[in-house]
């Protein structure tokens, strides 16, 4: 399991636009590099990131090798009600990683 950092305001007022910052540990191997024997290192990137808010998808990103290693993604959403934010990263070769965080909306 890769390390993940997720940051957003712990408390928000209903209707506030909050910024969510995410970072996951991943090499994002482009597939264009060669190893020390001259063979191409196979591509292994996180190709999709999604965020759902109480089951509804609020953000989705398709990523390409041009995204840096340890992909950082920040986006915004409207705090509508208290509940669950589910973040999911799916990679070429490893498993999908899912993280769940609670959000409190007053």
């Amino acid at each position, binding site marked *: 399991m890769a390390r993940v950092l997720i940051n957003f305001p712990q408390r928000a007022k209903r209707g506030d*636009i*909050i*910024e969510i*910052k995410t970072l996951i540990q991943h090499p994002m191997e*482009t*597939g*264009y*590099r*060669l190893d*020390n*024997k*001259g*063979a*191409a290192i196979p*591509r292994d990137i996180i190709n999709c990131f999604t965020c759902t*808010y109480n089951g*509804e*998808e*609020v*953000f*989705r*990103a*398709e*990523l*390409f*090798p*041009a*995204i*840096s*290693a340890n*992909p*950082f*993604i*920040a*986006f*915004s*959403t*409207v705090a*509508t009600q208290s509940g669950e934010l589910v973040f999911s990263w799916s990679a070429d070769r490893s498993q999908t990683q899912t993280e769940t965080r609670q959000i409190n909306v007053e």
Partner: protein
Amino acid sequence: MSRQFSAPRGGEGRGEVGGGGVSNRGATHLTLPVTDVTDPLPLLPQADGEGSSSPTRRRVLLTAAGAGLASLAPAAEATEAAMTEAIRQLIGEAPLEPRKVKLELPSIVENGNTVPLTVSVESPMTQADHVESIHIFNQKNPQPFVAAVHLGPRAGKAYVATRIRLADSQRIVAIARLSDGSFCSGSADVIVTLAACTEQ
């Protein structure tokens, strides 16, 4: 381009033995600016120190690079044309309204491996009028695509920030698809002093 790759010497295998430490830096450097084959080639014998072994090494590097590229999408040759084509596939014949999308990234980048990038679009983000997706393209990386993000009215504002890789000084273009089906764009030029992927 690939014809130039395979030109010197017909055999295969073997040469990899010679491709030790120093040459690999050349190899990784070579893989990115695929279109500039004529440029790095003259550098190879110098880096090698001896002219006789350089064709072998060159062949190994180039076939390796070529093989890697061949197994990938044809879009692996990054040019302005590839970017234009990628954008054309996205928007079709629709008109593009320039300068409505705001790209923020440093104008001079010291390290192309992590370049902070922020894209935002002026939009009320209501059910009737919002940004559906933002597509980011580049000119000179091996692929023209950087990322595509899908938003909706729940986003509150059309905003995304990430960190990208840049292989060369180039122009970054972001295109936003609006809910009424129209497109608008924005671009930014970046100067890169240390390109991505040149180091192991």
